[in-house]
């Protein structure tokens, strides 16, 4: 069977230890986590996790079934089986002497990214998009010298038309 990337949305009780229960399950059952994001959801007391994982259909079925066995898990949805929007945010701090800044600004504008901090010889670029867009941005900024890079991992949602 084919190993592909899946994006899973998990609605969980906002309880202490719930992240450990879910991530521990992935570890124990040898499921892969490419990225994981957690935050509040539309309902008070519930959080939503978005996990990007890889595996064949059998693995995905096991992930779903095993997740449902966690008492604090309310709903599991493989959203990548539907048309979806997935977004990731990255902050990239690069070397940028004042003379080179106009050139960098050109790249940033093309990507509809933004400069969120200016230091004496650095800039922080914020970029939002799917993972491929952020990969591309990182590649383009590499020649200037990346001092620090942080990415959030994807958060995602099924498109309105699919519901």
């Amino acid at each position, binding site marked *: 069977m084919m190993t592909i990337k899946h994006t899973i949305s998990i609605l969980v009780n906002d309880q202490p230890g719930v992240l450990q229960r879910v991530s521990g399950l992935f570890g*124990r059952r040898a499921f892969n986590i490419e990225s994981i994001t957690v935050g509040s959801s539309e309902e008070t007391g519930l959080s939503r996790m978005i996990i990007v994982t890889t595996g064949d259909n059998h693995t995905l079925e096991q992930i779903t079934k095993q997740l449902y066995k966690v*008492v604090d898990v309310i709903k599991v949805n493989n959203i990548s089986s539907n048309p979806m929007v997935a977004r990731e945010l990255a902050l990239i701090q690069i070397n940028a002497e004042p003379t080179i800044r106009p050139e960098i600004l050109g790249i940033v504008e093309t990507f509809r990214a933004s400069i969120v901090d200016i230091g004496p010889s650095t800039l922080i670029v914020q970029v939002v998009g799917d993972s491929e867009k952020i990969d591309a941005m990182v590649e383009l900024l590499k020649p200037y010298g990346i001092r620090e890079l942080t990415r959030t991992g994807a958060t995602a949602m099924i498109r309105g038309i699919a519901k």
Partner: protein
Amino acid sequence: MSMKSPKILNDEMREKLMQPDIITGSDILLRSLLLEGVDTVFGYPGGAVLFIYDAMHKNPDFNHLLTRHEQGAIHAADGYARSTGKVGVCIATSGPGATNLVTGIATAYMDSVPLVVITGNVALPFIGTDAFQEADITGITMPITKHSYLVRHVEDLPRIIREAFHIASTGRKGPVLIDIPKDVSSHQAAFKYPDKVSIRGYNPTVMPNKLQVDKLLKAIEEAERPVILAGGGVVYADAGKELLEFAEKVQVPVTTTLLGISGFPSGNPLWIGMPGMHGTYASNQAIQNCDLLISIGARFDDRVTMKLDGFAPKAKIAHIDVDPAEIGKNVITAIPCVGDVKNVLQLAVQKAKPAQSAAWIQQIRDWKQEFPLRYKDSDTVLKPQFVIEMLSETTQGEAFVTTDVGQHQMWAAQFYKFKHPRTMITSGGLGTMGFGFPAAIGVQMAHPNKLVISINGDGGVQMCAQELAICAINNIPVKVVIINNQVLGMVRQWQEIIYDNRYSHIDLAGSPDFVKLAEAYGVKGLRATNKEEARRVWQEALDHPGPVVIDFVVAREENVFPMVTQGKTIGEMLMGDFE
């Protein structure tokens, strides 16, 4: 037994317990346990549970058995639960008390045993500070509990206990841990026990989909070579009667896994024994040649399937299980059916029609006759299989049997003829040495008037032998059988067959004289080294009203056959040389 008999929860007592008094967390705990119908708790006190033990001191209705090690307490609670179907309860203190429970929690988790495990913890302000006797027991046990709670507010305690019992005892059963910080057990709150449980993320499917049941029945009707693989789920669902009725109606032979072995009467002509690594020839051949394999409450464990690629190669597989995650986990399933085994069988039996299985049943009968379980008996040295057969014959399968782990466990599974569900108590999934004896104490506590035999090896019995003290002091009349071959027998067998006789660290020289050990605890000790002595001392043990240790000194180099070695299919069995 000298333990006080537990109070039955009647309406009057319930009303008294439900009073909305302002009481401490410890009193809330005890009242809640009594309201859940708990009649016996196994435990060991310590600093973080002192308020709870103080409350016990003041509560005459509460029945607590003090073990000599926390592991003894949890295995006893496990034996209590497996033999009754009720939730077993144990209590330990924080830190080392809690970590001593870990093996027992994992044992119960692997075999789906309903337990509520209560641990103390350091007071809330000390949590996370590496305080004296602090351990993150909810963190440590997360992968081996069905669910767990760290109680932060005394007001939450009644709801949490109610939920814990519900979760432990429904769906696929399992252990639930409640960690109670010391200040939570001393703080006060008004007692209010919830009538109902509502957990949004927890709704096990117990009623099967009717269409799936119809598909199963159609497949059976069309099958010529069907086999039922019955597991622990049959026993846990109390579906022994339903399985018997169903199997006889559809005329399908039944093989029972180690945990399912008491789920089908061994005397029934449709029974073909245990499958897998040390299964019968007939069971393994039946699985390898069947055209329909119906798994009922079994999870295709690797000791049953051995090499998966090549397991039941000609079969369409139907799988009935209360845990949907088991279906399709190890084998591809054509007919999945999620539900409580009892419900499924009750529904299925109504419209069931027999399979076209007459010739197949004859074939299996021939296999059984051609390759029965056997061993080479001896008049000079006592054979372990002879001892088990003797236990079986003298008790007529009417005793509760617990086993430890190893060769004696396999011989017990092979040579003891079980008749009634829940009478075989053994650690199958985790394979926990040290389980058998303390589990028997729990069984005996639940069944004070029944004969309880604990079959052990000379290795495993030493892992929890300290519990002889509580048998002596409470006169708990467990018959502790030791199949003593002075060696770690199963390891020795593997080293002989797979590691070319390189015997590495298996000699148990230095073991105590088990008769003297028993006597040191104030328990009767007996020994047999040949058949005649074996018969005599076993009768003496049966006639003795209290606990007995019987040291059966048996042949050192005896192997369990049949055997399927790792990497082989169950069709490729070593049958042993009996000529």
